[in-house]
């Protein structure tokens, strides 16, 4: 371990709560998003237990409705959206591009505080009456009919939106102006490209959902009529405004995860990534086209047939850049020197689950099919494959990959491989049955269901217990390793990125001397400093080179 690093640069609770060091703020985020993940996870567990029997095994209908709503709100707004950007992005973007910090360190700290204040509002709502509107807050249910604590929740999400906006703003400016000498745009790590695209969505989408939820909140507080048909308002307008953000928000969750995978694969295959420019460009393409598909959530609201045709078409277009990424990642493995380390297992698990999630998106984008599977468990399964199988798998994989950089310690390798496999199996057991449930016609958000759906629900709940183990294991051994893990050294894998050129953990100012970049991204050939043998790529066993 280096003698001076960001963790021991100063001591005391004040040195953490008033820090402007992006690495410490990232750790503050790590603790807070883990807290919300835990809360959302408890709700999820209760949901799955409840659905063991057709009549509902655990709670009353009111409570069940609150459980799935609070699960969605906690997971989406307070875990998934900040997870990779605010933890890994915050920690890694400055060292990856050779900067001492983000462009606006104080704003970075401010956005954490905004997140905490928003989180307090939402927790207040959860603990005083709960929330039973669904995370989508459809009016007029949310603005008039619901008897739960909608107002504080809406305010909390409104406030939290600014945290996201400020993070996105900080990343965009940082990537534009803070790059080290020699770090050209096309030498940027794909993780940075992914975060650039994510930030675009954050700054362009979040304000719209913020104002929409504010209007819905005002409608509820002062009995106004923006979205209330009884007073001349239009509930469908709310859905348009809501999905204008909330569909692109899916890309806020998945793009950073794609960035993580694009880092892990070249490192553990020890070769440049296949089609760097295509992967970088596809991130931007996803962010841009992603803004043009929102009304595919509304095919059965009675929207105009022509609108539906246009939105279905655009939804198919947005699938192409995602497919391009998957093909490039797969091709990157060809003639690599592939190790079976845990981050690689997570990354490959991500590709598998994301592929299923992405392909099932094609089913939902299909107009004729959507009239049957819309708002059924098929949708639930699809977006959990994207958000949990994709985004969370990438997040956990990224945590493993950069854990030595963040803490300076290695995690137990065998246990972590085991956890990756448990997570993959548990996830599929939980969510694959839900595709079939959905096609059979089980609608989402049901606290009870006809008995013929029970077998698949029990299967799903059984899988969820395996999945829970898959999450608890890394939480336990990563925490353990902070104290007892082996010292990692600056570059344990070794990887080519700039963040690996500095100590683990890095010094407070990231680099002792400002680095100069004179190599292409993921280039193992001209890097004698990594201590690898360039010619010895393939062993005689498969010497078809």
């Amino acid at each position: 371990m280096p003698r001076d690093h960001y963790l021991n640069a100063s001591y005391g609770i004040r040195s953490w709560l008033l820090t402007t060091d992006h690495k410490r703020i990232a750790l503050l985020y790590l603790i807070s998003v883990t807290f919300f993940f835990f809360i959302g996870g408890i709700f999820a567990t209760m949901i799955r237990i409840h659905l063991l029997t057709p009549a509902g095994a655990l709670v009353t209908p009111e409570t069940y409705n609150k459980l799935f709503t609070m699960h969605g709100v906690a997971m989406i707004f307070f875990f998934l959206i900040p997870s990779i950007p605010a933890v890994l992005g915050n920690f890694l973007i400055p060292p990856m591009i050779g900067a001492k910090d983000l462009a606006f360190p104080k704003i970075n700290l401010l956005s954490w505080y905004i997140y905490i204040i928003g989180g307090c509002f939402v927790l207040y709502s959860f603990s005083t009456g709960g929330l039973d509107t669904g995370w989508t807050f459809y009016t007029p249910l949310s603005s008039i009919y619901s008897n739960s604590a909608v107002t504080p929740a809406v305010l909390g999400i409104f406030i939290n939106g600014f945290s996201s906006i400020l993070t996105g703003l900080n990343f965009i400016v940082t990537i534009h102006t803070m790059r080290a000498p020699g770090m050209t745009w096309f030498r940027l790590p794909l993780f940075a490209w992914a975060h650039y695209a994510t930030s675009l969505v954050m700054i362009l989408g979040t304000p719209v959902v913020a104002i929409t939820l504010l209007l819905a909140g005002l409608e509820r507080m002062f009995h106004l009529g923006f979205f209330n048909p009884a007073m001349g308002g239009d509930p469908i307008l709310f859905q348009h405004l809501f999905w204008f953000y909330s569909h692109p928000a899916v890309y806020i969750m998945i793009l950073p995860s794609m960035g993580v995978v694009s880092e892990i694969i070249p490192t553990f295959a020890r070769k440049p990534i296949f089609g760097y420019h295509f992967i970088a460009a596809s991130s931007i393409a996803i962010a841009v086209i992603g803004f043009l598909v929102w009304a595919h959530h509304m095919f059965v609201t009675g929207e105009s047939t022509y609108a539906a045709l246009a939105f279905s078409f655009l939804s198919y277009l947005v699938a192409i850049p995602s497919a391009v990424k998957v093909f490039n990642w797969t091709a990157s493995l060809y003639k690599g020197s592939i190790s079976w380390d845990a981050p690689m297992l997570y990354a490959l698990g991500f590709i598998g689950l994301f592929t299923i999630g992405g392909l099932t998106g094609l089913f939902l984008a299909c107009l004729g099919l959507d009239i049957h599977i819309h708002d059924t468990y098929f949708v639930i399964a699809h977006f959990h494959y994207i958000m949990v199988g994709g985004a969370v798998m990438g997040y956990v994989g990224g945590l493993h990959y950069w854990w030595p950089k963040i803490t300076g310690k290695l995690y137990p390798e065998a246990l972590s491989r085991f956890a990756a496999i448990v997570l993959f199996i548990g996830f599929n057991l939980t969510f694959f049955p839900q595709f079939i449930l959905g096609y059979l016609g089980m609608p989402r958000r049901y606290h009870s269901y006809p008995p013929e759906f029970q077998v698949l629900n029990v299967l799903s709940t059984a899988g969820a217990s395996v999945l829970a183990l898959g999450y608890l294991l890394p939480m336990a051994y990563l925490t353990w390793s902070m104290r007892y893990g082996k010292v990692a050294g600056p570059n344990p894998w070794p990887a080519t990125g700039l963040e690996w050129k500095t100590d683990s953990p890095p010094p407070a100012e990231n680099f002792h001397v400002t680095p100069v970049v004179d190599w292409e991204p993921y280039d193992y050939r001209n890097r004698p400093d990594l201590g690898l043998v360039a010619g010895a790529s393939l062993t005689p066993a498969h010497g078809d080179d």
Partner: protein
Amino acid sequence: MHRTGELYGQFQTLEQQKESATLGMWIFLVTEVLFFGGMFLTYTINRHEYFTAFGVGSNTLDIKLGTINTAVLILSSLTMAMAVWSAQVGKKALVTGFLIATLALGSVFLGIKVVEYKQKFDHHLVPGRNFDVWYHSEHPLPSDDPKEIAAEREELEKATSSQNPKYDPDVNSHAQLYFSLYFAMTGLHALHMIVGAGLLIWLIKVSLSARFTPQYNNPVEIVGLYWHFVDIVWIYLFPLLYLIDRHR
């Protein structure tokens, strides 16, 4: 990060710092455009749907105060621009003077806005149970122009007269929608003005210690950007809220 002079530790050069701050403010303004955009869209759709009621609601606004406020705000943009220019050419005393002038004009705007809001309360034009779009024309205040009140009355009668091809029986409830949007949009704009005033006070404090130089004047410049943006929002709000139905 430590600061050396005016250079914050995360930056290498003043130039880089300035570029970052300016880009940051522009991006922030982009988010603001979308923030207001959601409300402008809601306004547009409802204006299209309830054409008459929005016209009626608009005609109850005090166009004199609105026009004065528009002039005040445009003038404040001028003084703000002058403050930025003074900082760039290094006229330290002028910077403070123009900033104070901008703050004063901003306060005048907010003061007039308070007067207008009070009128709405007095005239039962705040959405809610007591909302009554007829009240104003039936209970004019001494300060009201009798001609305006008569025109307003006529407008209302026309809107609810069944001879009118754009007859709107629900003019009262749809005018409430108009006033909901009026308060939401001008309220949010006023909130931005208050934030701007806070930023100006901070700038005045800094400029009193004569720290703005031709090399370092970025804070003045980016607050200026923000101030101009808030003005531009008003330039859109004024016609949409006050002028839409004045041509008759």
